[in-house]
């Protein structure tokens, strides 16, 4: 096998060596529990508060508005369940979209079982939610609008500032799941009218098992995890100090050279998209071409199935993912691809490649070459392609 080409950075990323080094002392030397009284705990506590400040600054927020959690899913669960409970006197209606991550969608389904009403907004063929549609869905009993910053599968970046504006005009809280966007594209919670924002450390070269929730001081919700008085009594559990320090280090590194990273990733992305589109017939780029994460490439190749494609890419050292049913563990392909209007059989042939700044143009060319060969090979075995070609000949 050739060398590994990792193109699944939307699933997780490598931990930067600087991040790992920053974390080490908080395992080996300053291993104290920052909630302890003795002076030995002071250093861990200071490191944690410095980390909180770094993250707050990166968003234009106050340090008191950053709550450390176990990751993106916990942050999403906390927002939905917390707002549902705290604001139920106002109403039991929540607005979200059909293309959210399962951490949002499955939590919404849970709330539906408990008497809440959820509006799942449609998206257009590129996966965009419009502020107008959001506004139309708002009712007097709407307590929360939760729209993802950028989609994890197709990379579409939503008009967050505009949606936030609509939410605020109607006095409704606005949350965004920014797990794929934070530390990848600029975010300012003030300018973008965001009341709550979920993020996860391991999506931007930080450690796994740590994330945060930005929550504006105006939002008053109770804890999801009950117990000790950590995080101003809103999130119990001994602080994951190494994780917090590592996540902040990763966030700092990402923000320090964000423009450069975006430029590099965009160039790689557009080169790969260009080659795949040009060289593989009957394909479709999924997601918005412009309002798109700099590291996301997502295609459907007609007449083939995603898992087969992934196995063959894997055999060439390429790590990728797909929205096919076989990779989702159900009979249905990705809900995101169905929501943008793709028929099942086309959605089964999807391929997601998510880059990082560590990738190179040579890798993009290698991937394009391999993808072309593999798609041809699978099509030569596909009865759907057969039928299509025969149909074409008849016409």
């Amino acid at each position, binding site marked *: 096998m050739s060398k590994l080409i990792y193109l699944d950075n939307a699933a997780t990323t490598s931990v930067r060596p600087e991040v790992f080094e920053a974390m080490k002392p908080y395992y080996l030397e300053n291993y104290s529990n920052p909630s302890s009284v003795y002076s030995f705990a002071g250093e861990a506590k200071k490191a944690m508060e410095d980390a909180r400040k770094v993250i707050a600054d990166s968003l234009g927020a106050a340090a008191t508005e950053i709550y450390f959690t176990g990751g993106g899913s916990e942050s999403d669960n906390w927002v939905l369940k917390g707002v549902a409970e705290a604001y139920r006197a106002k109403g039991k209606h929540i607005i979200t979209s059909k293309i959210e991550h399962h951490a949002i969608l499955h939590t919404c389904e849970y709330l539906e079982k408990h008497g809440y009403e959820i509006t799942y907004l449609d998206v257009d063929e590129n996966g965009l939610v419009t502020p107008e549609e959001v506004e139309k869905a708002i009712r007097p009993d709407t307590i929360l609008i939760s729209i993802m910053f950028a989609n994890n599968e197709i990379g579409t970046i939503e008009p967050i500032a505009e949606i936030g504006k609509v939410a605020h005009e109607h006095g409704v809280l606005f949350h965004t799941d920014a797990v794929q966007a934070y530390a990848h594209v600029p975010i300012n919670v003030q300018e973008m009218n965001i009341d709550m924002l979920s993020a996860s450390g391991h999506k931007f070269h930080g450690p796994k098992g740590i994330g945060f929730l930005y929550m504006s001081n105006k939002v008053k919700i109770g804890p999801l995890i009950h117990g000790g008085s950590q995080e101003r009594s809103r999130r119990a559990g001994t602080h994951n100090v190494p994780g917090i320090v590592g996540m902040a280090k990763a966030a700092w590194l990402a923000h320090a050279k964000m423009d450069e990273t975006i430029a590099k990733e965009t160039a790689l992305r557009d080169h790969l998209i260009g080659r795949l589109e040009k060289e593989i017939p009957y394909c479709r780029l999924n997601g918005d071409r412009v309002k798109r994460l700099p590291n996301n490439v997502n295609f459907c190749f007609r007449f083939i199935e995603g898992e*087969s494609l992934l*196995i063959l890419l894997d055999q060439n050292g390429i790590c990728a993912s797909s929205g096919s049913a*076989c990779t989702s563990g159900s009979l249905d392909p990705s809900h995101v691809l169905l929501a943008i209007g793709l028929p099942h059989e086309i959605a089964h042939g999807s391929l997601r490649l998510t880059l990082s700044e560590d990738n190179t143009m040579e890798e993009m060319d290698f991937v394009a070459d391999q993808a072309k060969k593999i798609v041809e090979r699978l099509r030569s075995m*596909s009865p759907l392609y057969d039928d299509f070609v025969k149909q074409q000949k008849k016409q």
Partner: protein
Amino acid sequence: MNYSEKVMDHFNNPRNVGEIENASGVGTVGNAKCGDIMRIYLDIDEDTKIVKDCKFKTFGCGAAVATSSMATELVKGKTIYEALEVTNKAVMEALDGLPPVKVHCSLLAEEAIHAALWDYAEKNHITIEGLKKPKTDISDED
């Protein structure tokens, strides 16, 4: 991917991919909506009723390709009556097993053989004892 070596071998080097012109019987099963379609072609000797050749084309996952490939191998050289006995269990065993979520692929392979035999029986106006009209068809799509 939790596939056995045999499954990977049949996925990487599928046996009998292709089609047979003027095949004695062709069966297509599965449905694009679920992500698997198998088409099996049989070339059957009119006198001996032996499957002289068998080819397939499959749209589907690794397991779908491997089960199609193995099914064609198992059917080749057998009489149509013996071919009918090639069950999904036999295909799975020959592949050293399949992950639980992929068992339906082996059922599809069995059905594809049955569908091809059914086509053959219909074309030749004969009845093959024990052969029922195949259930799934791609025209089921909604």
